[in-house]
């Protein structure tokens, strides 16, 4: 019996290691010998078990606690209005300071890699929003891509133009972006996200005026710094209601950037609510040849037809180039609905509670059917949905709240009432 138990714990150990490896691989994508060892104190994640063997600390519970803290810290008021239609310019500082090597291999490369991840995440979370890229180098700002909805074209443009030289100019960047953003429709949220490597700014005029101008036209400016805090950036963010943060290392930079991906709460005076006329084009039948209005090329199959002017466009969401109607597909809209109908936070069920009413607790997680008992047949920590009172394991809890946005228990019941009756 003892022997088999030992075997089992060994098996679990392997599993834990696998999990950890996976986590780390997700974080850096590097082999163990390629990773920096400075911050990693691998010996601290080991503990001795009863028989004197070393095994990794079961950090599932602490990880889960962190996750719960994070989820609670986000405002839980259900009917919060979000700025779902965003017009965001990303300003990337490619001045001399971006060639510094404190981030490996250089700040520029790290920024580019993270901006790519950010762009993908941004379009995943804000399907109807648009994004543009601006570079600052040699004291001037250049527009790399105009506002657009296709992640691939932005990423391609970004990767093609990575050279750094000269000084950075905050004012020129702001002026340029201001010129573009004041044209966007009033229902859109105007935002600028600046990735600033330099410690100075080389401006042609009074930057304070520019900041006031941005404030007046409701442009929310956020800055992620790579070196040290600068007063003018802090002032800019305070004035325009943005966030200012400084990245400590590469993973922190990624975290800070991705904080800007979910839609910000809508602020009434920032964007005026309005009804936007949109078209839902049908997908054209396969094998039909037509000339697309966006590339002016004949194409076979695929494509969508604008319901108003019957022009053909290649991808959604876009604006019809002929009649200007905004074209979306219903899945694009549905992608944002989980922001509007968030699922309730599951409540933790402590082992003591479960031992008291053991007969009521099912053995398996309702979602993944995994046993809710720990290896030693002790009841582990798990959670329950307050609405359908089904039990879930911690992994499912995270998956349900972070990715699925559905409670499998509530969805598997026609009405929530019979359950309460059954409980009583």
């Amino acid at each position, binding site marked *: 019996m003892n022997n088999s138990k030992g075997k089992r714990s060994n098996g679990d150990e392997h599993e834990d290691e696998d999990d950890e490896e996976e986590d780390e691989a997700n974080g850096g994508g590097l082999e163990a010998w390629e990773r920096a060892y400075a911050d990693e104190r691998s010996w601290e994640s080991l503990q001795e078990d009863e028989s004197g063997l070393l095994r990794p600390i079961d950090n599932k519970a602490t990880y889960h606690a962190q996750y719960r803290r994070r989820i609670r810290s986000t405002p839980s008021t259900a009917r919060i209005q979000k700025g779902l239609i965003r017009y965001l310019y990303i300003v990337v500082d490619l001045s001399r300071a971006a060639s510094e090597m404190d981030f490996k291999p250089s700040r520029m490369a790290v920024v580019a890699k993270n901006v790519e991840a950010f762009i993908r995440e941004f379009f995943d979370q804000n399907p109807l929003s648009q994004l543009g890229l601006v570079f600052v180098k040699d004291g001037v700002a250049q527009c790399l891509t105009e506002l657009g909805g296709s992640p691939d074209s932005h990423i391609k443009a970004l990767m093609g133009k990575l050279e750094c030289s000269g000084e950075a100019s905050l004012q020129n960047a702001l002026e340029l972006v201001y010129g573009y953003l004041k044209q966007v429709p*009033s229902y859109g949220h105007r935002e600028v996200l600046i990735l600033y490597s330099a410690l100075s700014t080389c401006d042609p005029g009074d930057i304070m005026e520019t900041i006031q101008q941005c404030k007046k036209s409701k442009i929310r400016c956020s800055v992620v710094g790579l070196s040290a805090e600068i007063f003018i950036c802090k002032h800019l963010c305070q004035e325009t209601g943005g966030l200012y943060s400084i990245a400590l290392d590469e993973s922190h930079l990624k975290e800070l950037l991705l904080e800007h991906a979910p839609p910000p709460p809508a602020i009434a005076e920032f964007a005026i609510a309005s009804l936007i*006329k949109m078209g*839902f084009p049908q997908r054209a039948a*396969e094998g039909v040849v037509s000339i697309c209005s966006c590339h002016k090329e004949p194409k076979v199959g695929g494509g969508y037809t604008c319901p108003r002017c019957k022009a053909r466009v290649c991808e959604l969401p876009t604006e019809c180039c002929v009649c200007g109607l905004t074209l979306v597909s*219903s899945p694009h809209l*549905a992608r944002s*609905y989980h922001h509007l109908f968030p699922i309730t936070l599951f409540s933790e069920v402590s082992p003591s509670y479960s031992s008291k009413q053991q007969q009521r607790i099912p053995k398996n997680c309702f979602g993944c059917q995994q046993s809710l008992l720990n290896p030693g047949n002790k009841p582990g920590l798990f959670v329950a949905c307050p609405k359908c009172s089904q039990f879930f394991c911690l992994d499912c809890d995270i998956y349900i709240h972070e990715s699925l*946005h559905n409670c499998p228990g509530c969805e598997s019941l026609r009405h929530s009432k019979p359950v309460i009756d059954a409980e009583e």
Partner: protein
Amino acid sequence: MSPAPSVASKLYADDVSLLMVLVDTNPFFWGTAAANSSSLSFSSFLSHVLAFLNSIHLVNQLNHVVVIATGFNSCQCVYDSSETTNRISDDGLPAVYLKLLHNLEEFVNNDEKMCKNDFQTGLTSSLLSGSLSMALCYIQRVFRSGPLHPQPRILCIQGSPDGPEQYVAIMNSIFSAQRSMVPIDSCVIGAQHSAFLQQASYITGGVYLKPQHLDGLFQYLSMVLSFNDMTLILHEMQAFLFLCLAVWALTSTCSQMQTVFATDLHSRSVLQLPKPVGVDFRASCFCHKNTIDMGYICSVCLSIFCEHHKKCSTCGSVFGQPQADASKADRKRKAPGSPRHPRA
């Protein structure tokens, strides 16, 4: 009972699949199907499903199958091939299927009991969103089991019509499946097309199929499979198995789903799978549930309306005049401010 160590020790090739089969057990659908002599009865449907599960194991012994029943009032996992041992019982049926049938029967009875409380509601849809969510949670568990895991996919065998009230939940599941690269295949055995499953299969890259004749389905096989491609590219052994399977399916009265849905994800690239006939991407408005191809969207919550409203019924925002705003923006655009590059 604990499948984890054996799972970890298995070495998976790229053609080992985890197949989540969502079976529609909605009594309203099967009740009408039984009344209609031309359609499939539940028992013959079940025998098709069992034959299908057998063929999955025949293609690769390591394939892992989970069956989730989608009922009218509840959903439940009724079969997990990793939990049961393959013994032949006295009746000739493998023990696994006895267990499946036993669980299924129990589930259907429970489902019916819950049904009696509130029968008067006019709904006839089954809880697809629940079984999809469960399937995705299960798949996440397999992803967590380590770097080597079988390739997951979901097969929905759906007969009942779509439930509009599940729209948001089903879309959430679809996007989550898309993010974790899990294709959702659908086999619609009901009378009309399912717009939900069309979108699910299109978005996740799965196969959508609505067989025309439910008993004579093997006829479709020859159209669906192109053996020449297969024998060229697939390993001999596997091609042989497919051939066996196909021949067996041709000779028995199995449905087409055997061959379309039994193939693993890698073999799909060399098969001629049914092409989507077109996907209905039109939205339905929140106010009248009409399907529209042009409409108004609330800029705050993206609710869809077929006509202009003063106030959003979902989020309560009061709308300004969109036309007036647009013209103002236009005027601004025509009067450009100071030069953009003072330094340049």
